[in-house]
């Protein structure tokens, strides 16, 4: 029980910092939106093409935003040597991991709603299969947030952290990119039953990532 309470404490801390500093709102959300626009420029605003590629473009935008979110999540620990504070707090490594990953997941989820609205409006997508969209969205977000948090702490305190994290995270989350894109595609094409194997994959990935992070975070936090 204290494990979960500690996790909530850490998540609350991160989200409070974000609410006050407004970095996520003023930088990461506009970033997601401009990426959505850039894709339209790249595809020459061809409506049918944009419409068909919408799920993939949506998740590509989210994947890029994850990199910013995790960079932000660990740069707030670098300032004022907050990382040492976390280490000395006596909180269990696993609960710190869950807290930080949950804070990223909440931010990502909000971002997904905003970017989703942008995609619907700009790419002319009609929303269908809300339940499938929601399930796969949540599972993918948890998997992404957990993986990004593991690699965030893995590269934490290193000189080349900013450039190292994308190289580590992006190849590792290919199953999420594929699974989330395909299940969104199935939902939007009106064939939600096609999405279930992908949702299972996303859930399995999320469980693995959360387990790996909970085990590995403590020892990794002691470094750097």
């Amino acid at each position: 029980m204290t494990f979960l309470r500690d996790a909530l404490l850490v998540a609350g801390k991160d989200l409070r910092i974000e609410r006050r500093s407004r970095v996520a709102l003023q930088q990461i959300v506009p970033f997601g939106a401009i990426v959505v626009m850039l894709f339209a420029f790249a595809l020459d605003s061809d409506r049918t093409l944009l419409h068909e590629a919408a799920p993939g473009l949506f998740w590509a935008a989210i994947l890029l935003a994850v990199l910013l979110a995790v960079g932000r999540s660990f740069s707030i620990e670098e300032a004022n040597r907050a990382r040492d504070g976390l280490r000395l707090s006596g909180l269990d490594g696993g609960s710190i991991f869950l807290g930080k990953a949950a804070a990223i997941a909440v931010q990502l989820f909000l971002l997904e709603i905003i970017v989703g609205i942008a995609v619907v409006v700009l790419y002319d997508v009609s929303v269908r299969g809300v339940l499938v969209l929601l399930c796969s969205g949540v599972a993918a977000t948890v998997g992404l947030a957990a993986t990004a948090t593991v690699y965030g702490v893995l590269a934490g305190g290193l000189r080349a952290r900013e450039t190292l994290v994308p190289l580590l995270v992006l190849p590792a989350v290919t199953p999420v990119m594929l699974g989330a894109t395909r299940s969104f595609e199935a939902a939007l094409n009106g064939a939600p039953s096609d999405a279930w194997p992908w949702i299972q994959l996303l859930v399995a990935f999320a469980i693995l990532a959360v387990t790996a992070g909970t085990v590995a975070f403590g020892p990794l936090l002691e470094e750097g």
Partner: protein
Amino acid sequence: MKRLFAAATLVTLGVTAVFALWVTPERENQGFQAVRLLYLHVPTAWVAYLAFGVTALTSLLWLIPRTRDAAWDLIAGASAEVGVVFTGLTLVVGSLWGKPTWGTWWEWDARLTTTAILFFLYLGYLALRRTAATADERGKRCAIAALIAFVDVPISYLSVTWWQTLHQQGTVFNPQNKVLIDGSMAFTLVLAVVAFTMLYAYLVMERFELARLEEGREARELAQAIAERIAAEPVEVAPA
């Protein structure tokens, strides 16, 4: 001993080259002469998987307190380096073979795509190795990264396989198209795998030795710098 092993490796590689280039026949449905790339492609792919398997195993041995030894970390790094080079070679050779045979450099086949993902995963691992400051810190971070990468690979393979089977039917690797392997071809293939495994072992041994020397030099230089610094600075007497 090592020199003998190096010589044996060289001889095996030479014999493989002779068999691959002159003894084995060309194949009509495998791009005629291009089929000879098979004797390079299969062993490099095998060595790549072997190398990453060894990296995962030695990383695990480093993480378990009872078997922890600095050597495991160095072997993991050496093996991953060789693995990345051989994965790159596998992709390039496969591409060269694919152009005349399939008519395309790249096919979004599950095996190809997963191999490419593997390449990037371990490039990240090598980048991580280069940035860590101390040996112990590097050992811990890299061992965990290697194990995560190792777990990620089967999931990636599964996801890409599903993607392909759910999307475009009939990829290039259908069983009907398989080459009926000729006796000399099978022999050359086995010989090539043996030769490249020996090459792998030799390269890892050399790389491990080099890494150990590098670490030793760093430790020596640090000790020397500290000694010089202490000698150069006058001893300050604390005010009473």
